[in-house]
């Protein structure tokens, strides 16, 4: 059982990305993560939410994107779920395209497709599951140290 759990449900509107970002920032400051870790978590959740809005729902508003933060003594698990189009599970492990370019040749440099790559680099464990038409990105960040609790103090 997690220490604490917070659930956010946003409409699949790009403008709500700001809302999620602000919520994550506040949560991370309460857990007292380092700036780097907080940034990584915020970025990973933003990428997962973008993925739901852009790919699962084709940028169409009016659908739910659910973000669940579950805090355990040793880890933070964040789920980002949608009921839209399922992502190809192979994409999770295939981030070669986004990471294989020559820095000296900008023609080679892709303008997109880095979201999963970023999540994989920033989080400790990343899985993608579909159950009962609900697609969930499940991202785990391990917590080093003790007594992490969302207190707001």
């Amino acid at each position, binding site marked *: 059982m997690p220490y604490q759990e917070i659930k956010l449900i946003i409409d699949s509107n790009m403008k709500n990305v*700001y809302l999620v*970002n602000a919520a994550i920032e506040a949560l991370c400051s309460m857990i007292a993560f380092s700036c780097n870790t907080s*940034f990584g978590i915020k970025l990973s959740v933003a990428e997962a939410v*973008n993925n739901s809005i852009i790919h699962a729902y084709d940028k169409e508003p009016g659908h739910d994107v659910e973000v669940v933060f579950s805090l355990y003594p040793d880890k933070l698990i964040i789920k980002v779920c949608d009921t839209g189009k399922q992502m190809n599970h192979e994409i999770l492990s295939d981030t070669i395209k986004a990471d294989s370019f020559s820095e000296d040749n900008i023609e080679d440099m*892709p303008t997109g497709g880095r979201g999963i790559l*970023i999540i994989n*680099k920033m989080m400790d464990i990343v899985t993608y599951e579909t159950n009962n038409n609900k697609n969930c990105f499940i991202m785990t960040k391990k917590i080093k140290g003790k007594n992490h609790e969302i207190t707001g103090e």
Partner: protein
Amino acid sequence: MRLLESKKSGNVLILKIFEDELNAAVAERFKEETSMYIGQGYSRIVLDMTKVKFMDSSGLGALIFFLKKVKENGRLGVFGFRKMVFNLMKLTRTYKAFDIYNSEEEAVAALSN
């Protein structure tokens, strides 16, 4: 509301982003507005990133899109990357593609030559 504010210094156009976040919500608008300036014939452009506290992969993609468009027949200088934003560029190995300067003055001087 405009995402970018512009001013000129000699033959160099300076564009300042006026959003705290360069994210998926504004990436398309960034592409449109920067393309508009390129369409007006500006080829030496300095981008001021000082206000941007957060950038996601959509924002980064929009920056790369802009860089590619400018480089077709011009030069782009960027300054004002905050630490966390720059960390994303390091993580994705994209920072090397950009001409990054310490200040507006330095960027304008480099692009004026």
